């Protein structure tokens, strides 16, 4: 069976229509603040809506159901198309000159990476650009976080049975589970929870930073994105309250939303017995502790390796160290990528911890990027099983997760994912080095993009930006961001010739 291109184009049309409607929101923001660039959003919105309606009226009446292939194609192309369209306002509004930069910024937003090209290379500073554009970046984060396709599923019933294929291709994690019998209901519940937690965060942030910043940062937090409305990210507010609120919500955004759903239904015990959650909390706690002690000046003095041009003297009080440590651990592990401090000047041991955090990611079914905790858990269990197997060659050792046995298929999927993930990082690093970046920067940029984190190392630290990356490099990184958000398989599959054959 060959790919049903009509069905793919029809569904893409619907998604573009959706994007058009979403673009009306930043237009309203621009009108509200009296910014002259409102028309840039208006024109793009109008164009998208027209395009969407066109495909709606040209739809095939005998619309056949979406099969697995169409599911992958739709999701992969949807993210490309949405970023292409979503980038237009930046150019039309005159905020950015290069389309490459606009595309990079949009893909970074949708994929919840949060790597920005603003503030360098002739591009304006974040605080210089009109509010509507800041809002659009945050909104794109937020839509991309839970998944724009999942949102469409929640609102439009017409994707029908094929919806499961789309859902599987977009929702992160080795196996996508439904919360309710119907895919539309599942998508609705997920979005309701998402909206609910976001609103809660907005209310908590509002008194400290005002409505506009509260909405933007809530969007960026819940999507584990990382775009801020300030040049200095969250650190610029200098408020412990804001940092703690955001730390907690970053943590929540990195939790599987199916667990939020169960918690709301009062199934507390099953939630707290969840292996992945326990490991996630454990990793978070250990990383926080290590960073806290590594940056606390009394301890810092005894760290042996810390010599050279030390500009960092450590935090005097433990509570201050904990505040920065917890924030940084949560920001990197959940792949949000907000910054309150420049971790590049921290002691090497702490940088090492942060470096490892880049590879963790949130839980499956969360808005976080990265490898995902569940895959680490399964991979380690598998490795221990192999060790055990060496001692008892004849033993039959199932891999358990809670009281369930994980099937071989899932294990294979996880292992291939890890191989592809590392492979992508290897190739990406090589390509970025080819463009002339130093090895640390090339490696950091790749890891950060595939993991949807944002800040990296070298010349891409938390206080720097991506403006100086060569043009071709920005396209490569954009691709990596998308591959990371869609968990590689969905993206790689469209490059496999067999996918296009009968």
């Amino acid at each position, binding site marked *: 069976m060959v790919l049903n291109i009509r069905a793919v184009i029809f569904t893409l049309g619907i998604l573009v229509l959706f994007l058009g409607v979403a673009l009306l929101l930043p237009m309203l923001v621009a009108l509200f603040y009296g910014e002259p660039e409102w028309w840039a959003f208006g024109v793009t919105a109008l164009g998208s809506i027209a395009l969407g309606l066109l495909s709606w009226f040209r739809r095939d009446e005998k619309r056949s159901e979406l099969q697995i292939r169409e599911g992958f194609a739709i999701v992969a192309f949807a993210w490309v198309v949405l970023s292409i369209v979503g980038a237009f306002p930046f150019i039309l509004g005159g905020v950015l000159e290069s389309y490459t930069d606009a595309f990079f910024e949009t893909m970074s937003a949708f994929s919840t990476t949060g790597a920005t090209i603003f503030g360098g290379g002739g591009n304006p500073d974040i605080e210089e650009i009109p509010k509507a554009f800041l809002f659009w970046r945050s909104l794109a984060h937020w839509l991309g976080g839970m998944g724009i396709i999942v949102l469409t599923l929640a609102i439009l019933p017409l994707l029908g*049975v094929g919806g499961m294929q789309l859902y599987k291709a977009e929702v992160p994690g080795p196996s996508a589970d439904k919360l309710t*019998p*119907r895919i539309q*209901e599942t998508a609705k519940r997920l979005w309701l929870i998402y909206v609910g937690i976001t609103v809660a965060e907005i209310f908590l942030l509002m008194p400290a930073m005002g409505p506009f910043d509260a909405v933007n940062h809530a969007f960026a937090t819940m999507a584990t994105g990382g775009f801020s409305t300030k040049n200095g990210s969250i650190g610029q507010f200098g408020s412990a309250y804001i940092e703690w609120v955001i730390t907690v919500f970053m943590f929540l955004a990195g939790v599987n939303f199916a667990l939020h759903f169960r918690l709301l239904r009062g199934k507390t015990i099953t939630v707290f017995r969840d292996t992945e959650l326990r490991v996630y909390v454990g990793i978070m706690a250990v990383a926080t502790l290590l960073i806290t002690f590594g940056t606390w000046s009394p301890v810092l003095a005894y760290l042996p390796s810390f010599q050279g041009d030390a500009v960092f003297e450590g935090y005097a009080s433990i509570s201050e160290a904990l505040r920065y440590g917890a924030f940084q651990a949560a920001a990197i592990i959940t792949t949000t990528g907000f910054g309150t401090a420049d971790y590049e000047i921290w002691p090497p041991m702490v940088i090492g911890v942060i470096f490892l955090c880049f590879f963790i990611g949130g839980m499956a079914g969360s808005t976080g990027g990265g490898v995902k905790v569940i895959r680490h858990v399964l991979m380690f269990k598998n490795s221990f099983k192999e060790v055990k197997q060496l001692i008892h060659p004849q033993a039959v050792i199932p891999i358990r997760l809670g009281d369930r046995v994980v099937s071989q298929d899932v294990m294979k999927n996880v292992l291939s994912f890890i191989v592809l993930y590392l492979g992508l990082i290897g190739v990406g690093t090589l390509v970025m080095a080819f463009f002339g970046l130093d090895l640390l920067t090339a490696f950091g940029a790749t890891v950060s993009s595939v993991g949807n984190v944002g800040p990296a190392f070298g010349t891409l630290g938390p206080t720097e930006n991506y403006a100086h990356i060569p043009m071709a490099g920005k396209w490569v990184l954009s691709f990596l961001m998308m591959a990371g958000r869609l968990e590689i398989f969905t993206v790689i599959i469209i490059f496999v010739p067999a996918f296009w054959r009968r």
Partner: protein
Amino acid sequence: MRAIVIGAGVVGYDVAKLLSHAEHDVVVVDVNQDALARVNDKLDVMTVCGNGTSTAVLEEAGIQDARIIVAVTAIDEVNIIACMLADRLGVETTIARVRSEELSRKQTVLKPSDFGIDLIIHPEESTAAEVTRLIRRASATDVLMLADERLHLVGLRLDPDSPAIGRTLIDLVSDTPNIKFRVMAIARGIRTILPGGRERLRKNDQIFVLARPKDIPAVMEILGKSDQKLEDIMILGGTDIGARVALQLSQEKDKRVKLVESNRARAEELAEELSSVLVIHGEGTDIDLLVREGLSEMDAFVAVTDDEESNLVTCLLAKHLRVRKTVALLSNGAYIPISQSIGLDAAVNKKLAVSREVIRFLRGKHVKSVANVHGLDAEILEIEAAPMSAITKDILMNIDLPEGLLIAAVMKGDDLEIATGLTQITPGARAYIFVLPDTLEIAEQLFAN
């Protein structure tokens, strides 16, 4: 509304599909992960892997909110226990597939209600009954009972030399005023037509005629079909269905039944059980054996082995040897659409029996019973006319009925009348109606208050 289906086999899949398309929130439970994966890929349902007899599994499937449970695994005990649990947990309707005769007998120690089972379905039993009916009506492709067997719906394919071809339905009926019958549906190509009086019959139409049992031979004659008796019958496959068909047919006089079974032990067992049936031990694929046993002299050939391909092929072979009537069990259903066009006389299917029961539940309240016929899109409902409902306002001729709705017969108390334009439906009367799926809602409204 939540519905739980235990068992993701062929029947379970079908039931889940049916319920899901009827806007139910379906959860399918099975122990087999692969079977669930198939369901998950094709249907918008949730799946739970586990044993249906475990409360924890049922709770995971959301039994608290479920209103119907359909237990159709291959194991009787699992189905019974699942329904018992569901009943205790407050599920309104419990349907279990039970193969054992024990519960279905009239005089039995344990009644289904003792287990909290509202309805026992027995796919093998209903399939066997259908096969038997098909053999009794030699020319029919389908035979269905309505109104407590007081009306028969007979499906038949018009022969090219049938005198009825080219005539309108009004003509046919007015020619023979003494015989009351009505053509309810025509399956023409892939289309199902609920015909008006001016519809002309065409070559190769498969038509569904409603009549009283005593009138059926006469109706057959009008339509150019002989309703000759089938006397020599060969059954291939000593399965549950095969044995039942053999038993039922061999109890009739004039019928000589041969049963071919490939398993020696099973064959001996059957020979013991069925005294007036000639049981032959041999492979169904052994054509020589079938021919030696006189396949070409048979009036009817029934293939009900577990292997649907060999059922299909041996039936075609029998047809080639000029056996008058062939019936094949096509368990998967995938071959049913082509069975008529490649020359098979009739196909039976276990799934349909179950689906009928489930649809009956779905229609609920004032809809009493339903049937559907394979190859026919229309559903057949027994529906009660509510007081003040639109349908009772006038005689049928003067009521504006939608295209996809035909009223077949009306039952007023114990009076049964085949509907005509002059029929007046009174409140409380039960009508047998044929509806196309897209007209179903309009039809229900017409009968509702």
